[in-house]
């Protein structure tokens, strides 16, 4: 068996921004003194004039992004999820969501993936907060391939988008020739009939692992990858739930 390739989705984020810069000339990237960690530094190195370091001031950064979008730019705003969705929540709600501006938020180090930094930095609330904002698309990609696809989809989408990226390297699981990404569409990554496991982000790989262990116990689990938390692919989830009669969610 070949070695499993592992890449952190934040790394995918930085690479996608750089790779898409020529195709999306209005793309600008904002960071709050964390370019090395959020990986927007990859973009900064290639396009220094289009990378705006706002210093350690996330609330202002979110407003500056709103203003940039009103001046015709497509800003991708980056920080740790704790600060992008947590500290700047009200700025996202009132300065981005309410006027429905074309601002993209790329939040890294989300959830407990930030790890040893400890609880002050472990933002487990971002998905809940962001999906309450009307019009906000919320995505949580599972691997390198999906993360890059989500960044492209966000740029092609008109309106506010929140994407959550992880800190730790995770296995590439979507390397299939027929892989196609669409905002709002989930995918069945393992078919089964006894129980539905709905997973998002870096937990999809763990869910697949769990399904394999369950199979050894004679339980045939179906695993669904939900990258887009909002709008949710209700059709796919309901169809699977009707089939298995049991749903477990993992995030």
């Amino acid at each position: 068996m070949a070695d499993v390739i592992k890449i952190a989705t934040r790394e995918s984020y930085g690479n996608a921004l750089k790779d898409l810069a020529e195709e999306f000339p209005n793309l600008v990237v904002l960071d709050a003194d964390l370019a090395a960690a959020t990986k927007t530094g990859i973009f900064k190195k290639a396009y220094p004039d289009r990378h705006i370091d706002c210093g350690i001031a996330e609330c202002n950064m979110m407003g500056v992004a709103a203003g940039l979008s009103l001046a015709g730019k497509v800003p991708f705003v980056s920080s740790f999820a704790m600060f992008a969705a947590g500290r700047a929540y009200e700025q996202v709600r009132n300065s981005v969501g309410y006027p429905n501006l074309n601002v993209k938020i790329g939040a890294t180090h989300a959830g407990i993936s930030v790890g040893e930094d400890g609880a002050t930095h472990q933002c487990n609330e971002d998905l809940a907060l962001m999906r309450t904002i009307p019009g906000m698309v919320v995505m949580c990609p599972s691997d390198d391939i999906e993360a890059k696809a989500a960044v492209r989809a966000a740029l092609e989408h008109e309106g506010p988008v929140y994407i959550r990226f992880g800190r730790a390297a995770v296995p590439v699981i979507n390397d299939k020739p027929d892989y196609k990404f669409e905002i709002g569409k989930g995918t069945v990554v393992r078919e089964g009939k006894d129980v539905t496991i709905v997973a998002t982000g870096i937990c999809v790989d763990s869910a697949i692992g769990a399904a394999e262990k369950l199979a050894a116990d004679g339980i045939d689990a179906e695993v669904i990858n939900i990258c887009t938390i909002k709008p949710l692919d209700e059709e796919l989830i309901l169809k699977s739930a009707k089939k298995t009669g049991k749903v477990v969610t993992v995030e």
Partner: protein
Amino acid sequence: MNNLELQKRANDVRKGIVTAVHSAKAGHPGGSLSAADVFTFLYFEEMNIDPKNPDMEARDRFVLSKGHTAPGLYSALANRGFFPVEDLKTLRKLGSYLQGHPCIHIPGVDMASGSLGQGISAAVGMALGFKMDGKSNRVYTLLGDGEIQEGQVWEAAMFAGFRELDNLVVIVDNNNLQIDGAIDEVCSPYPIDKKFEAFNFHVINADAHDFDSLRAAFDEAKATKGQPTCIVVKSVKGKGVSFMENNAAWHGTAPNDEQYATAMADLDKIAADLEKAGEA
């Protein structure tokens, strides 16, 4: 437009403010009236705008960071021809497009605002965007003197000063009153001018109710290169309505029918005096 003409327009803007807030039975007349001359100067003299083409790409932008004074902005926009003056009476009413705080779908409104401290950041972002593209659009934003107690204002000021955004003008309406009382008794932001200077702004002190002073200040702002400008305008809260002047109680209270009649009589008297001055 000469000063007398501007004074007449400003008085019309004030009538619109008082009428809108009276009709809504709620709203913020005090800070709308203190800024009425600034609104008038911006929309009738200073900014490159076209009421017939509110989304014109080359337009200058205005962000009302002190969003609660929406009646002042709406009245200026209506009197400038962006929408019917008659619509001011629908302020805050269910189904009206004139909500209590500015929202982005109103003709002539460039940014939603009202949560204090946030408008200035959006204005800074606009100014940066225009600079990056080498465009000549100028950006104006109006803040309350109480509003600058918000930390985000100083995050934005630090950024704008550092980035040398000389297409940005931050106006601080210094009427010295906030809801809970005098700003220097609640949590003093003074000295306002020295603070903005420290953040690399070119600072001008002006008289909010003197069009010569405003004209000179905005001309100086335009001539300033390599720095954003902050114009601190000394104003009278409730200006033009005798019983509202310098009274914090009129920050966010609507006049009843009797008070409305008195207010309109005050403004009619000013209008008559201005007519007389024109004939003299």
